């Protein structure tokens, strides 16, 4: 294998700015970040420091103003709309702070959604969605709509949706931001299990004890990486 081939994410001098009338907001000011397969990374930093902006770029939901981004060795800038859609569909699982579930659809339908766009046939789709929901312990709530579920359950549905395509990379932007500490703890247990199962995970969080679950904590301040601290060796890629 070529050196660097286990890099899932590589960014170089990544910037993102938003023109706001006459001024320009520089949300990211040159981020260099490498994340390898099997890593469990927490991104911390004060509010407005650019964490979500970075996650959106990594998740191929947004495009950088300048700089380079390679996803699994492939330069993302060269990809077209359909390619990006395919990557969002197959390679990346994204968990949002605000869940972003379809209000009118059941938990099962919500989890099926990525598979629909992935062209998975109905029967297999259903089986996989059920499996994913069981994995997050929601086997009994499949026919509930989001407004019939608790906040923690909703977040677990959105995690099931992120996992159902078996993505190489799981991105979570403050997955526990809207949850109480007990529910947060449950979600983090789930993430730990996913990491042990070999998933590469990037979690944005405000809370130190959430970040402690990760093996590496990257801190962002004013759109730049302020610190990058390796806490212990990630188990999953340990020999």
């Amino acid at each position, binding site marked *: 294998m070529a050196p660097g081939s286990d890099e899932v994410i590589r960014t170089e001098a990544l910037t993102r700015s938003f023109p706001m009338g006459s001024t320009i907001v520089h949300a990211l000011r040159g981020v260099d970040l490498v994340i390898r397969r099997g890593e469990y990374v927490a991104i911390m930093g004060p509010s407005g420091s650019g964490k979500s902006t970075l996650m*959106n770029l990594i*998740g191929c*939901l*947004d495009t950088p103003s300048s700089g380079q981004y390679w996803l699994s060795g492939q330069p993302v800038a060269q990809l077209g*709309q*359909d390619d990006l*859609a*395919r990557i*969002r*569909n*197959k390679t990346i699982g*994204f968990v*949002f702070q605000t869940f*972003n*579930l*379809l*209000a*009118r659809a059941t938990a099962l339908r919500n989890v099926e*959604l*990525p598979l*629909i*766009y*992935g*062209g998975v046939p109905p029967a297999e789709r259903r089986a996989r969605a059920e499996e994913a929901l069981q994995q997050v312990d929601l086997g009994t709530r499949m026919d509930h709509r989001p407004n019939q579920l608790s906040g923690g359950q909703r977040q677990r549905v959105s995690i099931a*949706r992120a996992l159902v*395509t078996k993505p190489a990379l799981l991105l979570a932007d403050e997955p526990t931001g809207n949850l109480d500490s007990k529910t947060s703890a449950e979600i983090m247990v789930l993430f730990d299990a996913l990491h042990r199962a070999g998933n590469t995970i990037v979690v944005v969080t405000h809370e130190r004890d959430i970040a402690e679950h990760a093996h590496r904590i990257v801190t962002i301040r004013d759109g730049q990486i302020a610190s990058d601290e390796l806490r212990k060796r990630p188990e999953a890629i340990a020999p």
Partner: protein
Amino acid sequence: MNFVEGFRLALESIWANRLRSFLTLLGVIIGIAAIISTAAVIQGLNSYVSEKLSNLGKGVFTVQRVGLITNREAFLAAIRRNRKLLPADGRAIIERCPSASAVAWETHATIDIKRGTNEIRDVDVGGITPGILEIEPFEVADGRILAQHEEDGSAPVVFVGNDIVERLFPGIDPVGKDLRIKGRDLRIVGVAAKKGSILGFSQDNFVKIPFSLHRKLFGTRRSINISVQAAVPEDMETTMDEVRTVLRARHHLEPADDDDFTFLTAEGINTLWRSLTATIFSIALFVVGISLVVGGVVIMNIMLVSVVERTREIGVRKAVGARQRDIVLQFLVEAVLLSCVGGLIGVAIAWGLSELLAAYTPLPARFPSWAPPVAFLICAGIGVFFGIHPARRAARLDPIEALRTE
């Protein structure tokens, strides 16, 4: 995403907003219902007319002074220019047209007829040579029709239509009774079978008397209509040419002059009628076309609103991997389905309306079988045409922007 998925999504979404969907569709519903109802009425009239004309048998034509009246000027010009047709013209045709197997004529007058305290107005009094009954057969309900010897002797006899019986002889068997016409008592020899009405005009308000009697009662100045049966029905043209030659000679027309009489054939009447209804239909089509365009614009508008309302949903879909074409498909299918639901309701209304019209009005409306597929095509077209813009707009939304909206 495939078509089935899109269809399912569209149904869910339309159902979730059913009242709004219905209101949105009013334009399309009314447009489709109106166009099909119009078509139903015209179709009904057309088949009615050709049914009625089919008793003008094959190879039969009529020569008249004035043709079918389509406008006032043409009518007045014909009255001014065309000579009256007289029995002598008819006799000349009998003598000099070998390819005519039967020739007969009829003339008309309109009078009111009284019997005791009962009166019936505007009765069409036809004076016929009995031969016409072979060319244009009459259905007899009671008694018999007029005989040749009655024509020869100007016998005071009359054959009556059903209205005369109903109005003047309620509950009485009229055959053998007298009917006073123009001061003469005429013996009723028979009653015609009821024909019903066309567009509210009764077809039974008539009596028939011998032609020779008609001349005595109403004078000899009235023009006649001459009915001719061609011996070879397939070669009616030859017979018409013979008749034309005879009449032109009798009327001393120069070769350059137009005919001063008109031929009427079942086919000709049919053609005229159809061109008339086609005009009505195309006017209706134009008016309804406008309503369909308005309906389409309303659909476009509601789809644009829907795209704005569902921005977040679109963001979610794009975030989990929907491509632009998936979103376009979703919204396009929704617009098409919406419009087709409108078409379906419109077709149903038109069907109900044409049944009602046929049952409760003189209009013989008949629901056309081509209506559902044509309505479907039109509505699908409207959906695609007016849905593509909102669908594109939805597909081009930026996922992050879309997810940010509340």
